[in-house]
């Protein structure tokens, strides 16, 4: 597919110890694509292999087997990095530099001109809201501030593809909001975003498609709206109903033999999907679930 920014085929990663003995299989035969212009979410419980997958894509880890291309190039090709921005799980930055110097340093690594570097760091520092702290060394930063400068650093080269490993961790609600806005803005600019997160509400808000990993296996892959759609349920939204209206509707429904009509706000959200996937994966390992199955099991879970 020519539109795929990331293609992963049968990717596996086995962490070995010093003697080459197998320790953990972090990723098992993973195959998926990320399309240009979409926001893709990688979900999964702790230790499910999200970060490992991302690092392999970046060439920070060598896969044990399998193939992948990123922006049409091999993961070990340094030149692909020209168009990639990466926000690591924790901000691995030089703590003795201040915000300005940090951005200047990473800008130089892209061989950006001095004028470009200044312009771009001003923009980014403004954007991540570090204007007041830009001359302070990173070792004095709070966790959230470090995340913010990490994000700025990831965007210094105006990348085509942005990989965000838990972008909202450590951010205050306002920061989280801004981060989501930023991701949507990037999407609007036609960039591709891949993110991992545990903040499911955030993922639900911004992601077009998600993949759920469990113990290194791909369990769910699909469009968020499709995955969350409950096929055996119909949801109706109105302005809030009066008691009489509720009774009338109930009667109409009973005429159609529909008994268990509930009048609550819908609870089926990503959180539920996530919990369900994890639970069922624990019960039935080695299986991948289709969107239908998930929707169907959603009923059971709901009953």
């Amino acid at each position, binding site marked *: 597919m020519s539109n795929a920014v990331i293609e992963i085929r049968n990717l596996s990663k086995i962490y070995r110890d010093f003697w080459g003995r197998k320790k953990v299989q972090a990723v098992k035969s993973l195959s998926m694509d990320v399309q240009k212009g979409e926001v893709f979410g990688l979900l999964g419980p702790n230790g499910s292999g999200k970060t490992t997958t991302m690092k392999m894509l*970046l060439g920070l880890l060598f896969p044990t087997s399998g193939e992948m291309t990123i922006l049409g190039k091999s993961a070990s090709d340094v030149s692909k*990095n020209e168009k990639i921005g990466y926000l690591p799980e924790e901000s691995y930055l030089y703590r003795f530099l201040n915000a300005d110097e940090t951005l200047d340093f*990473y800008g130089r*690594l892209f*061989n950006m001109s001095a004028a470009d570097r200044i312009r771009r760091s001003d923009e980014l520092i403004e954007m991540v809201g570090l204007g007041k702290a830009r001359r302070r*060394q990173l070792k004095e930063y709070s966790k959230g501030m470090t995340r913010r400068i990490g994000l700025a650093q990831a965007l210094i080269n105006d990348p085509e593809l942005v990989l965000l490993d838990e972008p909202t961790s450590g951010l205050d609600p306002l920061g989280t909001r801004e981060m989501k806005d930023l991701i949507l803005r990037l999407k609007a600019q036609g960039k591709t975003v891949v993110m991992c997160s545990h903040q499911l509400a955030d993922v639900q808000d911004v992601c077009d498609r998600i993949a759920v990993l469990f113990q290194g296996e791909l369990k769910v892959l699909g469009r968020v709206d499709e995955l969350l759609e409950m096929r055996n349920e119909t949801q109706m939204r109105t302005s809030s109903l009066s008691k009489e209206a509720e009774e009338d509707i109930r009667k109409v429904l009973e005429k159609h033999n529909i008994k268990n009509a509930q009048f609550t706000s819908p609870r089926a959200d990503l959180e539920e999907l996530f919990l369900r996937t994890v639970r069922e994966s624990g019960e039935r390992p080695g299986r991948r679930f289709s969107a239908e199955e998930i929707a169907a099991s959603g009923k059971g879970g709901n009953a």
Partner: protein
Amino acid sequence: MDFDIRPYNLSSAATSWMMLVGILTLISVGLSFVLSLARNGGSGVAIFTRGLGSYLGDLFSLSLGRIYALTKLTLLEAIRRKALLVFVVFAVLLMFAGWFLTDTNSRPELQVSIHVTFLLTAIAWLILPAVIFLSCWALPEDIRIRSLHTVVTKPARRLEIVIGRMAGMGIVACLVLVVMGVIGAVWIYRKLPENSRSQLTCRVPVFGQLYFFDVDGQPAATGINVGDTWMYRSHIAGNSRARAVWMFRDVNESSIVRETIGTGDEAKTVEGVKLECRFEAFRTVKGSEKSVLQGVQAQYTLSSNPREEAFGMLSQGEALRPVADALRDGQFRNGSERLKELATRVRSNPDELRPADYLGLQNGLAVAGVVLKELKLPALLPVQEKFEAASNSGIALIRVLQINNTTGATDKPPYAEFAESLETLAGGILENADVLHESLPKLEVPLPAFHISEYHEGAAENITVVPRKLRFAADYETLARFLSGIFEKWSEEGKLVEGNAISSGLVDSLQKDASVSPLNAELLVTVLNEQLTAGTLKISDGKLAVVDGRRWFAFFDDLIRKELLISQDTDGWLIEKDLLTDLVSNGFYAS
């Protein structure tokens, strides 16, 4: 392994550096190929080629901008993480070092070296932690706290990261070195009393070549190996005729230094050649505690003896030694006689000498020819040619001897021709004895003896400044020849006499025309007057002459031997004069 010191040569250094790097590269490439094969089996080849390819790709697409970014990062790191605190430590050290170091009044001559050693040690010890910390912070720390992850996900190549980091560390280390060096130099300069500052000028060592003479005074290839040191540091037996001789070829005016010795009232400035050496005494017999503590007495003799150089090689082999000895001692007549005897032996009884003797003789003749040629004195040309001719004739002889030896042929070796060339040479030497004498003067200066302290301390250092104004003891003959040369000529010209007495202007003209130093000129005139009174000299026909028709040479030879040519204030048989200068200005040296 050889320990000879060779002058630094940039191009050969560069070549050997490149060879080393090349070899290391080849080894590491080979090793990684083997490793790749071992790890990955058959597919190892492909993996290896890919790796090599990407490395070469990296090599050719290095970006200076990125390297600079990493270099700058390292510099900032050094500053921000306080690696440069070493400067503070350094400054504190310097501030307080003064208290301890200035108290070296007991050994004033050591002041400079103590200060310099302290400074260099301080710099070395301080630069070490700076560089260690820095190199620990740089890449390993990058890997540990994963800041490298952020860097390698930018388009930075591995090679760029390594080069950038190394360049940064290199610059920091250089900076530290330069700053400390400059501060240290200023500190030392201000700390030292004015008269010892000259010692800060660095010295260019002139290395001599070392020759040994064994306990019988015979040339030996090496000294005695006492077993606990490298062979290049061999020993000579004490209390014997054993000597170690260093030959210096490039000692000239430029080797002379000015130095202040002593402090306070006793300080005096000496101008001369500085001799520095280290000794080690080694005792091979058990002795009483006392004898151990007594230490060892040692002495240098400075000598300039071109004859040793020219004829020393002739002394290989028992049969040839008399010739060599005579020539070396300047007994050219005697040497000529011995050479004639040798020629006779070669002619009448050639087999008495072994082929090795012929080889040694030829070798010695060739060396003599070359050395005489190098002196570039036209007067020596005839003798030099005869040495060459004899050497050539020796080659012809040796060739036949060799052919006979290896092929079993029985060609008659040209003994007669060789003998004849030796006779010609003997004649030439006799004929040119005077020229040889004047062209190859021997000077000898025994320096004050010194003490190598107790041996179990190991080594002792001796630093002597050989003053420029020395009491040089030329050998009798050279001195006598020098003086008689002057007086013979002036006597002929009637320059020596004024009325009935020795000319009053003689002191002046000795200084002006013969370049004799003032003291010597006066001494000479005084002694001449004494001799005139004593009746060994006479004035006849307005000329000063030696009685009994003897020659001036014999007269001066006598004077020196009878130790009459000594001024009141000299304390030996040495004639007080700056003889070196006197002789040089009279053409004894052709430098």
